[in-house]
């Protein structure tokens, strides 16, 4: 009786899991399907295979500008938030200071804060300060939301770093900077790369803040949004979305690979440091 119930609930659980996966990933699968579909209208049945929508992308000048902007914003945000994240993770791992937990969770807050609130708040602030909106203000916003992710990733890298390794380096006559360069950096490097990749991906995909804080120049997601008004361009937007999707997945896989490598290098179980991606 009991086992029958158990079997039943297991069945339901499986069904639930499948439904959930479909709900989660069906739109993602639709994207490449229509990107390669030989029709201007997004509807079933599919009519044939084509790569013409990708060719259209290749010829759209305004898109290239948006890609360039996104790359600039993505790289700047990734570098800045990784530097800030490294400082915070290092401080959290090595030093004891008053209200450490409070300060750390305060820094992590943007992780759970609705982005729209961050965007509006930043917009109001920038207006008050009289700063003109530009790609720089987008970078500012992106650094704000990327830094917590960077901290989470780098935390495991810095926590796993045995302090006696640094002491051994000083003891052998190396300076503080030399120790950082020869011991700390190589050991946290995979974590740093992982952080760069993930924050870059986040910035690349981010829409709300980019939409609110940008001036005349737009990033890729904002560009895509602006193109959605023209039904004729929908298939090429699908193609663009497909490229972005592939790129994001690739970057995240790379990031996770680096994070695991970091853990292995330090001789810790990767799972023990808390998987991120």
């Amino acid at each position, binding site marked *: 009786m009991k086992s029958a119930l158990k079997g039943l609930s297991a069945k339901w659980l499986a069904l639930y899991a499948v439904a959930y996966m479909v709900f989660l990933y069906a739109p993602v699968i639709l994207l490449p399907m229509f990107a390669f579909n030989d029709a201007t209208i997004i509807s079933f049945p599919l009519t044939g295979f084509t790569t013409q929508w990708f060719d259209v992308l290749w010829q759209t000048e305004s898109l290239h500008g948006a890609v360039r902007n996104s790359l600039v914003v993505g790289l700047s945000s990734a570098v800045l938030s990784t530097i800030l994240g490294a400082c915070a993770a290092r401080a959290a791992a090595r030093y004891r200071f008053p209200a450490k937990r409070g300060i750390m969770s305060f820094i992590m807050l943007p992780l759970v804060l609705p982005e729209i609130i961050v965007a509006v708040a930043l917009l109001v602030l920038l207006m008050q300060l009289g700063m003109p909106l530009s790609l720089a203000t987008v970078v500012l916003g992106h650094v704000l939301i990327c830094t917590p992710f960077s901290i989470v990733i780098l935390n495991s890298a810095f926590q796993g770093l045995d302090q*006696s390794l640094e002491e051994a380096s000083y003891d052998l006559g190396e300076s503080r900077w030399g120790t950082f360069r020869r011991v700390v950096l190589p050991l946290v490097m995979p974590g740093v790369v992982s952080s760069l990749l993930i924050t870059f991906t986040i910035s690349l995909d981010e829409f709300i803040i980019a939409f609110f804080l940008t001036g005349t120049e737009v990033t890729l997601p904002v560009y895509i949004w602006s193109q959605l008004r023209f039904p004729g361009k929908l298939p090429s937007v699908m193609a663009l979305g497909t490229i972005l999707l592939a790129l994001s997945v690739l970057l995240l896989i790379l990031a996770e690979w680096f994070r695991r490598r970091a853990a292995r290098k*330090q001789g810790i179980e990767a799972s023990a440091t808390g998987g991120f991606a």
Partner: protein
Amino acid sequence: MASLSTKPIIDLAGVTKTFGSFQALKGINATIHESEFFSLLGPSGCGKTTLLRMIAGFETPTDGTIVIAGEDMAGVPANRRPTNMVFQSYAIFPHLCVAENVGYGLKTRKTPKAEIAREVEQALQMVDLGGLGSRAAHELSGGQRQRVALARALVMKPKVVLLDEPLSALDKQLRDQMQVELRQLQQRLGITFILVTHDQEEALTMSDRIAVMFDGRIAQLASPEELYRRPVDRRVASFIGVMNFLDARATGRMNGHLALDIPALGSIELSSAQVPEGLDLRNLETIGIRPEMLTILFEGSEQTEHVARGEVTGTAYYGDMTYYSVRLPGHAEDVTISMRNTAGRSIVPPGSEVPVGWGADSIVLFQ
């Protein structure tokens, strides 16, 4: 050991360390000599590591001075001190191979590459790791890691090598072997070694001199033999080996002799050479005697100076030795007597009445 130089290499004067409101070290005074194997021995939390880390330069003393090779170390950072450390965790750089680990310090000195390679190989041979330079750090066994850590310190040709419980992570057999090797290496190189340990046997077998520490203070600083034979107080006595404590009372002092009444053993006279300086006879309540200084007398045994009677209450057989618990009249706690097992002598069963022989010169008085 008599040939050992007594030129000081490290001088600790009133060294104190306070963490918040907790005083970890309460005024350490000690002089460590050149080419000496010096051990800091004490129970967990007595401040051994803290003292070693202050010598290395990782902690600054709250008070007092540390002089190494004639130079006051106040304000001298760890990377400019003539000391090198072997860490308890070994702290092998995980991203570097064995040779890069050992050559790490030489590289900071801008030593030419060829010379580094030569010295590294030399250091590796010294610790029996010749030819293993290209091994990755994670491919090493515990014993090999320990040797790499040692080679990495020795290659710097430091005046002092600091070792924080370097053998505690090894299994018993390897530990015994490393004790011998470490001692031989130190004697061959003539470098001062300072070893932190909480293992009294390790300290006794390896050291020229030992500082026994309790609660942030040095209780006694002496050679292993002196520590074992003449521990200054009960704490040191029970930390180093096994000691029987017996009630005693001083009954008088005349022409160089001290008259003692030991209820469990009888009345005796001690020569004044055995009485520590500054001993206040009125405070004398306890004496100590080592288990091997008490003998159960068998038929045909050598005669001893004094004989008491006791009853065997328990035995523990250790192969080469047998430990007896023996009740002596007028003494609440059983004493321990260790006897070497010889051919044709059987173990005395519990309940037997036995004569217990001892000599006055084996009595230890405490300050």
